[in-house]
């Protein structure tokens, strides 16, 4: 598998130096077929923050909408070209890895153990970062989550949107 350079390569020259750490960069590879890694836990933590205000208020509906979005995220990723998938998986792997978390968020605390306000703080830091890399990570996750959530017809009622029925 090709070594990917989207995050790790760029970090070697920018953020790693800025953060004053020695970067250990493991070889990255796409998951083999059958070795399905869908990052549900990771996205399960991020979705309530990123979709706050859009998800339904009723707990069971909210859970259903999150689960539907997690499925849609998996489908969205599968539709991306290999290179984009690889970049994304690299970012997601780093968010599941303590050293990666340190590099991306200046903290080793797993995302699962962070409060919504901590997660918001993390996203805001990326969003307003001077490092194009962190901005890109923010935008990549944002676009994936928003596109996946609003891809689902189940989530259109709040928009008062429906596609026309042409073929009845």
């Amino acid at each position, binding site marked *: 598998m090709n070594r990917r350079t989207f995050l790790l390569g760029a970090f070697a020259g920018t953020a790693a130096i800025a953060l004053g750490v020695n970067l250990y960069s493991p070889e990255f590879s796409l998951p083999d077929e059958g070795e399905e890694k869908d990052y549900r836990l990771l996205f399960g933590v991020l979705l309530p923050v990123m979709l706050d205000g859009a998800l339904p208020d009723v707990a069971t509906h909210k859970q259903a909408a999150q689960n539907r979005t997690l499925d849609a995220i998996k*489908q969205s990723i599968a539709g991306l070209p290999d290179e984009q998938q690889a970049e994304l998986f690299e970012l997601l792997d780093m968010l599941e890895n303590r050293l990666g978390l340190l590099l991306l968020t200046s903290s080793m605390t797993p995302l699962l153990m962070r409060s919504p306000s901590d997660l918001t703080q993390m996203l805001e830091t990326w969003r307003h970062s001077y490092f194009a890399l962190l901005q890109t990570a923010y935008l990549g996750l944002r676009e994936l*989550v928003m596109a996946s959530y609003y891809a689902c017809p189940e989530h259109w009622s709040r*928009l008062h949107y429906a596609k026309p029925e042409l073929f009845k």
Partner: protein
Amino acid sequence: MAIIDPIVTGLNSGWLHTDASQLQENQQFEADVVIVGTGAGGGVAAEILSQAGLSVIMIEAGPLKSSSDFNMEERVAYPNLYQQAAAMKTADKAIGIFQGRAVGGSTTINWTTSIRTPKEALAFWAQHKSVAGLDPDALAPWFEQMEQRLNIHEWNYEPNRNNGALKQGCINLGWDYTVIKRNVAGCWNTGYCGMGCPVNAKQSMLVTTIPTALEKGAQLFSRAKVVKIEHHNGQVFALKAQALDVNLRPTSVELLFKAKHYILSAGAIHTPTLMMRSDVPDPYQLLGKRTFLHPTVLSGGVFADAINAHSGAPQSIYSDEFVWKNGADGELGYKLEVPPVHPILIASKTLGYGASHAELMAQFNQLQVTIALIRDGYHPDSQGGQVHLTSTGFALDYPLSEAFWRAARRAYASMAELQFSAGALKVLPISDGMPYLSSWKEAKESIAQMDLAPLRTIVASAHVMGGCPFGEDEKLSMVNSYGQSHYLDNLSVMDGSIFPTSLGANPQLSIYGITARNATALAQKLTDGREPQ
């Protein structure tokens, strides 16, 4: 009412179509002409050459999809019909690019806007880019021919409210505006052109020129990606292609295509990329350079009543008030249009997340969106982008220059002024850090001070042009004004890659008209004046 699918009907009648994903072994094919790509250039060339009695093979990397597949959902359309599932971006990810990848190319998914090449562009090309024989009078018969062929005519119905706001704003401000000509016949006015026309009203290549060529005996290969031009001593002797599986990943099957003449119509990224990968002679290092995008910025206007910008003909009004205002090579001009607003498109091309984004989306039906397409490639500080080969494909670098940002700032101001004038309650320039603005006075001050930067300012493109320019001077061009390669006798280029600048107008009709002229000349040359069979 059942919709008749002309592609299914045609295939059942015996059209020669090969879905390369189904091939099990390497094969070789021959024709008089092989055409790479089936979009605006490839489709028109295929029809003209097959009507001249030449045998034609069309090769398309994307799948053959037709109205039966078009279910008006972005989640289906983007992965099936767009390059990189509509997630294609420049190398720094600052510009998102929408390009078609299916039989019919971008014409299968465009918004039908049909505009002749502006006279200012033609004059600039003649004066600065050595393009010969393409003035408005010389091109008029070709545009007329294609307008007739593709049912291009003014949209003489009430614009939808999204376009209506653009029109009203222009009227109130005394700005120029034009009713758009669309290539439609029997349009249902639903607003889903960008997801493939489900009723075959859009006169894309998928339902016009490609079926005609197939009727004339042309062969179509889908899911086959041409990877190399084999050439020697100034002649192309074959094209090598890779079969792709249903997920558009290469299989082990290789295809070889041989012809008397070869036409590249793979679009402004893939035509130069293929030529670069094949080491086509390029002594002045022009390939892939000066790639233009009409980089586009967006402004959202929230209205008190419903705009329903998803419903109705997506584009029916434009304003050229600011396109050529400072002369062709002065400060960059911009064309004002509106896009259709569908959930994924708007959710991903707006700002932020959480409550603020949810609030914006909750106003979905009251949202009017105006876009400014910035005319690149004329000003000395607007040299466009550059396509590079990578180990796995290509990357497009497109630095957003100071001249671009100056134009973007002016464009945000124009869009806000227009939207307030049309009755918007508040306006949101789509650039991170900007609040909703509640009056033109506030907008004017705020936009003058706003931070604009890559990745913070949403920039999109649906028009990729350049990278393999045409003209007579070999220092400035790769192909002559008829699209014929300066270096390979039997190779032509017929797509948007030949434009030496952007157009300042949506490109489909420019590609149709100029290809009609150039393909007709090629047909005459290849048939040596023989009567069509």
